């Protein structure tokens, strides 16, 4: 299990390769890997977005991410997991968040990945501020639910 906050752009596939090659346990037991990658779009709520900065609460962010994973572990059978989240200045097409869950069975992997993503969105102290095309900045005021 690993949790990483970074202010540097990252390639999610390279992160996954690295993690899988050096840290992943339970190799022969893994039948399913579910991965979610959240990327910065160039539009949001009707405006062209040219950049974004993400603020977080160091310490509490990690603590709440661990809590998300623990809760998922209580609900599904998870062999391993990886979360990477960007902070600082971000430009469109860059990755904001990577969540990976390894499990024996696909149902657990799918459910846990989605649960962690929703829990992250609603409980982990990150805040986005968008730079919109008028040169203005605006805080994103709320996250929407991913379960429709």
């Amino acid at each position, binding site marked *: 299990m690993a949790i990483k906050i970074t202010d540097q752009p990252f390639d999610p596939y390279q992160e996954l390769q690295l993690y899988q090659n050096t840290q992943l346990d339970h190799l022969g037991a893994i039948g399913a890997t579910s991965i979610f990658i959240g990327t910065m779009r160039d539009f949001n709520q009707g405006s062209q977005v040219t950049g974004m900065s993400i603020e977080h609460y160091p310490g509490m962010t990690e603590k709440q991410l661990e809590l998300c994973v623990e809760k998922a572990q209580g609900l599904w059978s998870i062999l391993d997991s990886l979360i990477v989240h960007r902070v600082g200045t971000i430009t469109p097409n860059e990755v904001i968040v990577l969540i990976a869950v390894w499990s024996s069975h696909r149902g657990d992997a799918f459910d846990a990945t989605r649960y962690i993503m929703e829990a992250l969105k609603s409980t982990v102290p990150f805040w986005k501020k968008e730079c919109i095309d008028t040169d203005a900045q605006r805080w994103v005021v709320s*996250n929407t639910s991913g379960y429709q």
Partner: protein
Amino acid sequence: MSIKVYYFASLKEHVGSSEHELDFTQSLKVKDVWFQANAELVLPKNTLAAINMDYVDWDSLVSDGDVVAFFPPVTGG
């Protein structure tokens, strides 16, 4: 007794500061922390509060040395 108070994101801009130090002598709830630290400021709706990095409700009591944080709804991911 004293506590640290942190503000994040839009709330930091609203308060005009990222942290306060607050001294107190008698039992204090989280909601009192806000009003003692920011007497003249409206408390924005939906503001969240944490003590020592755990979410708490507004009636939670603070203790000497606690770190209290106020921030808007989170928007990560």
